[in-house]
């Protein structure tokens, strides 16, 4: 996925994002971090095509949404911050719908469904309706849907909210697994220690712009901490507070 010179927002007069450019390559996990209101979710909305860029473009699998809608959408799976499920479908029916939408092969589907239900401890809830699930369980269903689709890009917004410790562990294990198989992952999260432990590169956003990007070393350098070392969290605080934290 390639985001180039993206400027956009809710009003043409007051763009929220300013000239955002970055790339997510196959086989890497990128952490998108920033304070509330920094522009992370707006960036993700532009990638999903829920918002239109004022300038710049977003390419997934080499095409923009306008050029080839179905190819664009089939190339990624999205896990939103707030789970969006159909109340009238059960857990396994959601998986089935996703399988149909992403044209997962029939024989492969059965096997993957069982695996995912097992891995996310959702076997006892497979016949439960979405309206009867807790927020964490709904989030698990969203994650299972994304993993079932097996796309080349995962866009994950605050995936750990509401997840139980086993769920977080299962998710991280699966993400490492799909990354090793060559998938690209863009993950937005406030849990900086986890982001630091699992992501290969980081994008730090502040007031709608990218203030640092790259490996931990690069982020530290941008924060003026190249000689002192320190965690991602230290560098992040320095970047967003200008060292006044």
């Amino acid at each position, binding site marked *: 996925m390639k985001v180039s010179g993206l400027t956009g927002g809710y009003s043409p007069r007051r763009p929220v994002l300013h000239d955002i450019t970055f790339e997510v390559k196959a086989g890497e996990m990128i952490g998108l971090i920033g304070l509330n209101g920094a522009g992370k979710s707006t960036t993700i909305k532009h990638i999903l095509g*829920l918002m239109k860029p004022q300038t710049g473009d977003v390419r997934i699998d080499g095409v923009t949404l306008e050029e080839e809608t179905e190819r664009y959408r*089939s190339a990624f799976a999205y896990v939103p911050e707030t789970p969006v499920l159909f109340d009238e479908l059960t857990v396994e029916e959601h998986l089935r*719908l996703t399988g149909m939408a992403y044209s997962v092969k029939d024989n492969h589907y059965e096997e993957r469904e069982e695996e995912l239900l097992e891995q996310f401890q959702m076997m006892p809830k497979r016949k439960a309706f979405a309206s009867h699930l807790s927020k964490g369980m709904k989030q698990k269903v969203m994650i299972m849907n994304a993993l079932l689709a097996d796309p080349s890009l995962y866009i994950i917004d605050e995936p750990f909210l509401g997840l139980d410790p086993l769920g977080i562990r299962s998710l991280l294990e699966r993400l490492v697994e799909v990354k090793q198989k060559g998938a690209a992952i863009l993950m937005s999260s406030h849990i900086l220690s986890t982001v630091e432990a699992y992501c290969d590169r980081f994008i730090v956003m502040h007031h709608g712009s990218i203030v640092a990007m790259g490996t931990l070393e690069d982020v530290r350098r941008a924060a003026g901490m190249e000689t002192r070392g320190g965690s991602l969290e230290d560098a992040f605080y320095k970047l967003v507070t200008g060292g006044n934290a």
Partner: protein
Amino acid sequence: MGSDRTLESIWQRRAKAFRTETMPYFRYMGQSGFPAFLSLIVISSAIGYIGLLRHVPDDFPFTIVGVIALTLVLCWSPLRTWLAAGDTVFMMPREADMNGYLRLSLRYTTLGCAVLVAIVFLLYMLIYVQGPAINGAWTLGIVAAGLKAVNVWGAWQERQMTWPSMRWLLRSLRWAMTALTVAAWLTSLLWQAAAFTLLLGILCMVLYRLPSKHRFPWERLIDEEARTRKRYYVFFGLFIDVPTLSSSIIKRSYLSWMLRRISFANRNTFVYLYSASLMRTEVGGIVLRLLFLGCLIVYWFAEAVSLSGYGSLIAFFIFMGLIAVQLGGLRHVHRYSVWKHVYPLPEKQRTDQFLRVDRFAIVLCTALLWLFAAIPLALSGVYMLSLAAAVLAIVYLAVRPMRLRKKLAQDEEEE
């Protein structure tokens, strides 16, 4: 300002807010020609009723009609509380003072129900006095008032019950006991009916004391209020676009097998989704109820060969039309779903797949309704009318997809 924060004034404000909110929709309904349609039904029913009053047949089923009509209005005891999800945060701390609030709700809903009981009771009494008339109208009126009060009390006790299964069990028992009591008063001598009622009353008091109960059933009342509001909006949705409220979902396991039969393929993605929505949302619930009622009424008319068979065909077309209108509402169900923006759902095929679900449902309902008219009519030697109705229905079924396709295209343009 302090007085504005009493729970009673909150109740008043909420009731007023609901009236203000729904007033424009009633206006739209008024402009739609629905009142004219309703008046037509009322006038034709009134003519039929007056005709019946003039010549009540000797074999008129006085007891069955009385038991069905009175039990329905006596048992049905809804409760408008205006409570919403946020009230578990904002109103719950004042639970101890909720009695006054609840009293207003009970008064408001019971008054409406009592008027309904009075109307049905009077209509029925005019027939009953020409039949067995074992007990006097005044006596029966007092009994009906008492039964209504007991039902309102029983319905509240059921709302308080902790376990849904127990609630359903006692609700069924309440309906059954009310039906038996009404039957007893319509067919037995006063002292016998009174003794029977006393026995059932004691049984009822004992049974209702047993289950464990919430002091104030917050979740159940919030859920009931949400469902009532939803029904209002489903009704208004027949005339104008209405805000989408979260839908109430009912499992309907007896229909799930149909969902499993949809083959796993990308071309069926929307077929799968719309079928599930149809089976489990309010739209499906209304269609099922209409179908059941329609089959029953069509059958009654056909079996009696009313109006030389035309009666059942008029009922057939009315119910077919009502079901068709309700099914049309399905197209709004996923109109604003974020899934279609995020998932690679085959958007271009959405219309075709939606039409497949609609066609299957309307053909199935029409065929069932038609059979309930055609078989009894055929047994009475009437064939041509059923055939003519079948032809007209087929013409409508052939035209419907084109009209729906146009509406879907319009919806998309508006988006």
